C-alpha cells in the first residue's frame, strides 16, 4: 500500500468519526432540558407564539428526522440560525473562528520558537544552571493557570508599564482603515496596506497569545529536552560527532529531527486542546473569538450555535491530528515505510 493510500483511508475514517460526533452532539443538544423556542422569544411571549416558532424550527419532529434535516442543511453550509444573535450560525462561525484561530496559531508559533530551542539548550546543559532554570520555568508555566497569568500580564504590561493594550483585537482608531478579507487581522491589516494597524494587531495579540502558550511551552520544552537527551546517546549521533561534522549541525539537524518526533505529537494535541482552553483567555482579553461565542451559546441553550461550534472544533481537531500524522510520516521515514508495508 502506498503512503497516500494510507492517508486516503485515514481521511475516510475521519469522516466516519465526524458523522459520529455530529450524531452525539446533535442528540445531546436536542434532549437537554429547556425549550429553545421559549429561550429565543423570552418570558413574555405567548404559548401560541412559542409553539409556532417551535414548529417553524422543526422542533416538533422526531429527533432522527431533525438530524436528517440538519445534515441536509450542513451539506449546503446551513447550520441553522443562532437564537442569540439571530444570524446564521455559519455566518457567526466565519466571523468568530478566524479570531480564535489567529490567537491559537500565534500561540503555537510562540510555543514552537520558544519551547523547542529552550528544550535543546536545556538538554545540552543537562543538570547545569540553564537546565535547572528552564526546569523551574517549565514547572511554573505548567502549574499556574493560564487565566491567572493572563491577568498578571494585563496588570504588568498594560496597567503598570502601559506598554501594550489589554483588550480587543485592534485599537478603535483603526476600525475603519482595515477591510475584512480573511478575518485574520494580522493578514487583513497587511492586505489593506495599513502598517500601523498591523503593528497594533500584533500589540493586541501578543499578550493573550503568550498567556495561552505558556503551559504548552513548558510541556514542549520538557519533552524536547528529554528526547534530545535520549537521541544524543544514540550510536548514530556519536558516529556523526566522530566523523567531525560541525556540532551545531549534529545537534540541530541530526539530533533534533529525531527528537522532534515525540514533540510533534505533543504539538498536535496542544493545538487541539488550545481550541477549547482559549475560552478563559478570550474572556480575560475580551477577545471576540469562537471559544467565548461557544460558551455563551451553551449558557443560553442556543442549540444551533452549540452544535455548530462543537462541529467546527471537532473538524479542527481531526484535521490537526491528520496533519500531525502526515508530518510524522514526513519526519520519520520508518512510520511511512511501516504504513506502506502494512496490508
Amino acid at each position, binding site marked *: 500500500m502506498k503512503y497516500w493510500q494510507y492517508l486516503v483511508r485515514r481521511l475516510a475514517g475521519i469522516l466516519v468519526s465526524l458523522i459520529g460526533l455530529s450524531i452525539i452532539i446533535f442528540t445531546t443538544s436536542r434532549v437537554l432540558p429547556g425549550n429553545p423556542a421559549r429561550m429565543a422569544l423570552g418570558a413574555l411571549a405567548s404559548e401560541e407564539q412559542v409553539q409556532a416558532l417551535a414548529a417553524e424550527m422543526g422542533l416538533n419532529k422526531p429527533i432522527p428526522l431533525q438530524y436528517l434535516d440538519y445534515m441536509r442543511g450542513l451539506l449546503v453550509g446551513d447550520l441553522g440560525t443562532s437564537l442569540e444573535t439571530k444570524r446564521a450560525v455559519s455566518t457567526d462561525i466565519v466571523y468568530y473562528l478566524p479570531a480564535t484561530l489567529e490567537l491559537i496559531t500565534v500561540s503555537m508559533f510562540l510555543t514552537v520558537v520558544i519551547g523547542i530551542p529552550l528544550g535543546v539548550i536545556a538538554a545540552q546543559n543537562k543538570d547545569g544552571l540553564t537546565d535547572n532554570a528552564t526546569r523551574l520555568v517549565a514547572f511554573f508555566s505548567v502549574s499556574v493557570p493560564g487565566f491567572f497569568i493572563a491577568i498578571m500580564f494585563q496588570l504588568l504590561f498594560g496597567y503598570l508599564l502601559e506598554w501594550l493594550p489589554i483588550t480587543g483585537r485592534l485599537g478603535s482608531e483603526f476600525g475603519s482603515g482595515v477591510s475584512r478579507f480573511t478575518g485574520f487581522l494580522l493578514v487583513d491589516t497587511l492586505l489593506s496596506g495599513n502598517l500601523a494597524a498591523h503593528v497594533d494587531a500584533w500589540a493586541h495579540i501578543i499578550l493573550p497569545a503568550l498567556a495561552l502558550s505558556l503551559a504548552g511551552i513548558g510541556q514542549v520544552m520538557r519533552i524536547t529536552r528529554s528526547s534530545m537527551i535520549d537521541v544524543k546517546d544514540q*550510536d*548514530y549521533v556519536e558516529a556523526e560527532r*566522530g*566523523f*567531525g561534522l*560541525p556540532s551545531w549541525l549534529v545537534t540541530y539537524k541530526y539530533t533534533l529531527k529525531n527528537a522532534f518526533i515525540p514533540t510533534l505529537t505533543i504539538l498536535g494535541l496542544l493545538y487541539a486542546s488550545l481550541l477549547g482552553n482559549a475560552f478563559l483567555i478570550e474572556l480575560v482579553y475580551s477577545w471576540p473569538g469562537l471559544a467565548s461565542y461557544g460558551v455563551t451559546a451553551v449558557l443560553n441553550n442556543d442549540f444551533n450555535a452549540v452544535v455548530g461550534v462543537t462541529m467546527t472544533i471537532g473538524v479542527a481537531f481531526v484535521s490537526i491530528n491528520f496533519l500531525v500524522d502526515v508530518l510524522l510520516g514526513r*519526519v520519520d521515514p520508518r512510520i511511512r515505510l511501516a504504513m506502506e508495508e502494512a496490508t
Partner: protein
Amino acid sequence: MKLDEPVAENPLLTVEDLEVGFESFDGFAEVIDGVNLSIGKGEVVTIAGETGCGKSVTMKSILRLLNQPPARVSGEITFDGTELLSLSDREFERVKGQRMSLVFQDPMSSLNPTFTIGEQLTDTAQFGGDSDTGVVEFFRRRFSGERDEARERVLEMLREVQMPDPENIMDSYPSQLSGGMRQRALIAQALLNEPDLLIADEIGTALDVTIHDQILDLLKDLIENHDLSVLMITHNLGVARQVSDRVYVMYGGRIVETAPTDELFENPKHPYTQGLIASIPRLTGDEMATGIDGSIPEYLDPPPGCRFAPRCPYATAECEQARPEMYERGPQTGVECVLYDEAVPASERPTVEETRSHMTRRPGKQKGGD
C-alpha cells in the same frame, strides 16, 4: 627483561600509561589501568578480550568520546607526533575529523534513521572534519556545485564497498537496508574523508557469519587500497586472526599479552590468552572447554595484584599481591605474567592443553556416535 613500549615500528598512534576511571555513586571505578599500545603506519592491530575488559573504553578515550566527568582520563596518547590529550577540544576535533575515522559496533543503530543514506554520507563527505563550519558557510557550500562533487565521491565509495545498486541506495533510508548493506554504508562513510587511522569497533559482529566473512574480506582489500592503519576491537579471536598483523590481549583493563598474530595463535603465553584459545569450539577432539571459569573483575574493588589471578589456575600468593611486569619474549612480543620471568624454567610454563585441562569441559562429538 621488561618490554619497552612502543612495540610498533614507525608508530602512527601510541598510547602510553593510559588510565581511565569512572566516578559513580558507589565509588571510583578504575577501569583502564596503565594500558600501553601502539599502531605502526600501515599496520592492522587488534585489541581482543571478552566483554567488559575495557576495549571500548580504551577506544573511546583515544577518540575523546567519554564524558568527563564522570570519566577521568590520564596518560599520553600521541598521534603522528602530536600529543592528543593536551589538545583543546577544537584542535582535537580537527585532527580526529581529518585523520581518524571509526566504524561503530552496531550497523543497525549507527546510521541516522530519519535521513537518507545519500544525505548522511554526502554531509560527511562535504563537512566531515570541518567542525568549524558555521551556519552561513554551511548553506553556501551545501547549495553549491561542491555538493554534486561530494555526491559523486559518495557514489564512488559505495561502489568501492561493493554496495549493490548504489544510485538507489542513496535515496533509501537505513531501515530499508539489510544489515550487510548498512555495514557497507558505514564503512563507506568512515572512509569518505581518506583517514590515516581507522578504528573499527567489533566490525560485523552483529551480522550473520557469511556476511561477516564478506565484510572482513572487503575490509582487508580496503585497508590495502587506502593504505590504512587500523585499530580493530573485537571479542572474536577469529576476526583478530583473519585480519590483523598484531594482537593485544586485554583483560580487566590491562594489556596482558601482545604478539604478532601468528605468534599469538601458535604460541599463546598468558594463561588468559591460552584460556581464550582453548575456548574456541573445535570440530575435532573428545571434549571442549566451555570457557574460562569465573568472571571479569569488579572494577570498584579490583584484585590488588594480577587482575586475572582469581581465575588463573596457576596463581600464587605473589600474583595476588603485586602486578606482574610485562616481560619481553621475542620481537614485538610481551606477556604480563610472573610465569615468564627469566628465573622461571621453561618447563614450568603452561601450554594451551594444560590450561584446557584446568577448565570446565563438556564432551565434544563422539566418534561413531551412540
